[in-house]
């Protein structure tokens, strides 16, 4: 398979499907109770040096509570997959958790602005990087989920993004057309936040999946944080709605408001005031240190963080916003 062009970005993970198979062969297939605290889940499955990936996208259904816990436990030297990674990226940068990075979209918080802290960390020289795109990272997870070392795509061609990636370009033997081969990405550990899960790890997600179906399948270890637990009987009543089957999952942690201050579809909208408070605090290093201490290091868990930021009353305001009930209240309808 002649390589026409290849990027010089390093692959931080091994795309070899036989090595992944050997790992997955040993993973338990038993439906056993995987309930544990998020603290224990991070202690057990997230290690210094591991390659980490985070579910959700752009502060939507992002496991923020897990990001706090990873920072709180002081993880270092991790690899990380940054596909439209916004507030999660900001938190992990604040903790200097990673030192190598697959980039698709980082630093920014989309329409909200840019994270000074994240930019500073990225310009510090402390992070080795490979460039990709959102779809390329999604395709890399898809290849891993398929159990193959690559999938072909038609993006990245003709750009510097390709040159600084770890992708390779070949000619399709059926059509002669150039294809970009996206190497499989098997994260050592991932965290995905879901709406509902049973104690075994069967999960339901409402609204957009983003890449979390493939991420769950690609990951060697998987921590689920869930808004709420449901009985296994309810999972079995409607197996069409299961998006992540239990055998992919290592830990199930019930974390209400686990995506706060981001959006959890059909639950609560993002807390824009709190996200702005982050962006503002970052501008003064001393203030930011205090901010992190208050919101992360001194919090025992997500309940304390929520209590600190308006508690359940605030969560219900955000619920009202999510369902656009504030508009109904204002306008008598949409």
């Amino acid at each position, binding site marked *: 398979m002649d390589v026409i062009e290849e990027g010089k970005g390093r692959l931080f993970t091994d795309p070899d499907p036989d090595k992944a198979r050997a790992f997955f062969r040993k993973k338990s297939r038993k439906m056993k109770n995987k309930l544990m605290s998020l603290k224990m889940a991070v202690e057990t499955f997230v290690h210094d040096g591991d390659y980490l990936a985070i579910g959700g*996208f752009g502060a*939507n259904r992002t496991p923020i509570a897990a990001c706090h816990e990873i920072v709180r436990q002081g993880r270092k030297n991790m690899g990380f997959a940054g596909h439209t990674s916004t507030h999660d990226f900001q938190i992990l940068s604040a903790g200097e958790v990673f030192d190598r990075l697959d980039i698709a979209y980082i*630093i*920014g918080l989309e329409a909200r602005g840019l994270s000074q802290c994240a930019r500073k960390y990225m310009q510090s*020289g402390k992070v080795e990087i490979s460039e990709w795109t959102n779809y390329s990272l999604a395709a890399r997870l898809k290849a891993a989920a398929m159990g193959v070392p690559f999938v072909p795509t038609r993006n*990245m061609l003709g750009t510097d993004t390709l040159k600084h990636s770890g992708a390779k370009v070949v000619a399709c033997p059926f059509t002669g057309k150039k294809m970009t081969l996206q190497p499989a990405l098997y994260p050592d550990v991932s965290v995905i936040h879901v709406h509902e899960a049973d104690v075994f790890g069967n999960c339901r997600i409402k609204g957009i*999946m983003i890449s979390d179906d493939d991420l769950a399948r690609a990951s060697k270890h998987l921590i689920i944080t869930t808004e709420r637990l449901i009985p296994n009987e309810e999972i079995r009543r409607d197996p069409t709605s299961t998006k992540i089957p239990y055998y992919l999952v290592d830990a199930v942690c019930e974390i209400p408001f686990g995506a706060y201050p981001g959006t959890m579809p059909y639950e609560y909208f993002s807390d824009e005031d709190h996200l702005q408070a982050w962006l503002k605090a970052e501008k003064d290093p001393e203030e930011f240190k205090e901010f992190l201490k208050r919101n992360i290091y001194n919090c025992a868990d997500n309940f304390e963080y929520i209590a600190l930021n308006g508690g359940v009353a605030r969560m219900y305001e955000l619920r009202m916003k999510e369902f*656009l009930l504030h508009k109904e209240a204002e306008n008598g309808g949409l």
Partner: protein
Amino acid sequence: MADYNVMEMMICVAARELEDGSTVGVGTGAPCAAAMLAQKTDAPNLVIMFEAGGVNPILPEMPISVGDSRTFYKAVMASGMCEIMETSCRGFVDYTFLGGAQIDMYGNLNSTIIGDDYDHPKVRLPGSGGANDFASFCWRMMVLTVQDARRFVEKVDFVTTPGWIEGGDSRAKAGLPLDAGPYKIITNMGVMDFEPETKRMRTISVSPGYSFKDIQENCGFELLQGAKIVETMPPTEKELRILREEVDPYRYIIGR
């Protein structure tokens, strides 16, 4: 003539480019405002797709994120990243709007770094996101940006997202899907397309109050001129009313 600001001008002009019954992949901000305005004016059947999975929502307000719950509010489908990008790659998405810190005469975009040393950039930018993907796959890529010589540069520091690459047939030779590529560049001062043979950027209309000379002076490379350069139609009263009252009542985008 109605009174309007730079952002309102660009959004109104952009909205008119979106054909009724076509599909558009958009991000947040001005592109989304343009698509919403188009739906409420001449393109009620315009289908909006968001890269994280939302398909044809009835947008109740401006989304903050391309993945927030507004992007699939009363949508016909809440899917995922691969679904949207593969749908684009399969040829189902007609338009996309992108931006970037820099653009060159072939419509190549940079949103990765500023500086000429990749390993030690002056400024690290967010990266491609889904821009490279949409630009590779959608039939017609458009850019909405302010006319500024620091943005319109001879050579971008990093080609994050493909335009016509080096012009001519270089985009097809690079292997990108055939017959797709940059279509229109919309700025506060005018509208550019690309000359069919060389694929070089070409001015085809100028905004009221500006001349081709103004555009050229705010562009870091030599622009071609269309056979006939017309005056861009300014925003109508109706467009402005809908944009201000229905699309962006809190002036998140147009108020800047």
